[in-house]
């Protein structure tokens, strides 16, 4: 396929009562993840009760922002909303250092294509999406 296709704008997170602290922190350049006050389990995406123990006392807690690439893909299909003209683009799944299987998704610049590998250490950074929205991203360190 070649040429520009009609594109939508990239989706922005619709912060809600549950998730607003996460996005407010991102806008301030901080990564916080919801943690259970009863058992210490990190829940992401946020939940109204803990996925591990069902406790309802959960608090957004600063985390190191460090992790490792759990897996990755280079996406070629041009049917992803807002990314129609970005293909090929990289998606990574990051396993956050604080807890096994605690995962977040991010993008890497396509220039990292030859460098990205499973296990690569990463740290958080933030991407300004305009209109007061910033989203956590990760870069290889």
């Amino acid at each position: 396929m070649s040429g520009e296709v009609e594109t939508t704008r990239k989706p922005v997170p619709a912060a809600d009562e549950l998730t607003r602290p996460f996005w407010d922190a991102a806008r301030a350049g901080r990564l916080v993840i919801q943690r259970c006050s009863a058992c210490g389990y990190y829940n992401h995406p946020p939940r109204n009760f803990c996925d591990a123990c069902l406790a309802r006392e959960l608090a957004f807690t600063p985390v190191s922002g460090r992790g490792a690439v759990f897996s990755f893909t280079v996406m070629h299909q041009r049917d992803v909303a807002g990314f129609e003209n970005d293909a090929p683009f990289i998606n990574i799944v990051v396993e956050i250092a604080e807890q096994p299987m605690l995962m977040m998704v991010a993008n890497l610049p396509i220039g990292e294509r030859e460098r990205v590998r499973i296990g690569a250490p990463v740290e958080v950074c933030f991407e300004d999406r305009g209109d007061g929205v910033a989203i956590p991203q990760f870069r290889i360190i």
Partner: protein
Amino acid sequence: MWHGRGKTAIVGIGYSEITRKPEKPLGLLALDACRAAIEDAGLDARRIDGLATYPESPFAGAGNRDGEDVVSVSFVLNHLGAAADVRWYAQIETGMIASPVIEAVNALLVGACDYALVWRALHRPILRGGSAASKGAPRASGDAQFIAPYGAASIVQTHAFAWRRYMHRYGATREALAALALNSRRNANLNPRAFFHFTPMSREDYFNARMIAEPLCLFDCDVPVDGCVALIVTTADRARDLRNQPAYIAGYGQNTARRRTLLYYTLDDYMACGGSLAQKLWSSAGLGPEEMDAAQLYDGFNPSTLYWLEAAGFCGEGEGADFVAGGRIALDGELPINTFGGSLSEGRMHGMGHIAEAVRQVTDRAERRQIAGASAVCAIDGSPMLRGSGIVVTRDP
């Protein structure tokens, strides 16, 4: 061994046209398939007193207009001309397509119905292009707010993440997927219902195909089509009075393991989760993987078949790539796999094609694909990383 072993049977198979250019709405294709299954069984529609389906759209946002995007129990109830007093019905959204078959088996065993019709109708959604009219960025809510802003909300990406991880863990290469895709295409070339019946595939075709989500290419994804497959399930006693040789249902199983991550399902769960299905499948049937004459293993995305081979015990963990090499899975091999062409080459029927082929193989109805004397075949659908369901069918009760 399960007390229900061999007490129910699949006695009819019906296909609608499987097409990317449908000339009629999905609901009418579904009625075509249902009527074909009833006729195949030699029944009158008025004898059908049980209805079950797995109705959901293939992905979120694909629409849910009954009779166009999906075909519900109530649609078939209203339009088929089944028994005036349908006694039992179910819409199942756990497991996958074997799950409504399993529920029909349970209903038959307790006498809730006598002749159950099970169908799966699938519509290929036409993706809408960008909407010039909408101002501002679309807003992703719920859990999607953590993936859609990254362009990572497509299921093919989830499977690409898993397959990348599999390659990393076990040293597998795309050769394993090529072996599966080519095997499926050869079998589809012998299946007159297959979307790719007339289209061969070479090794070069596979490796030259465009990437969708690396390392998955076009031919690692099932063919999105419009169509419906229907089955008739009844008790073994009633089955013996019908025209077809019955395919007896020996056992069943469903995934029941707990997931370990909130965000995605991951490769790391495939042995535990798929194993939770396999343990129930084999123990209920009183048969093991070594006794299967063929295996129909779901391939909505190609790697799922490889994961099922391992999770269901056909080979050890991480051994799937070696297992599928060298012709072992061909029609004349030690364990023929997806003998009808799979979803990759027959079309996306969400596992119904797999069950229909298992039935054909144990009842000598598999045309030029027939494995001589096949006595036990399994059909397993879904993904061992997440959810799934499966049955074993046998020639003898």
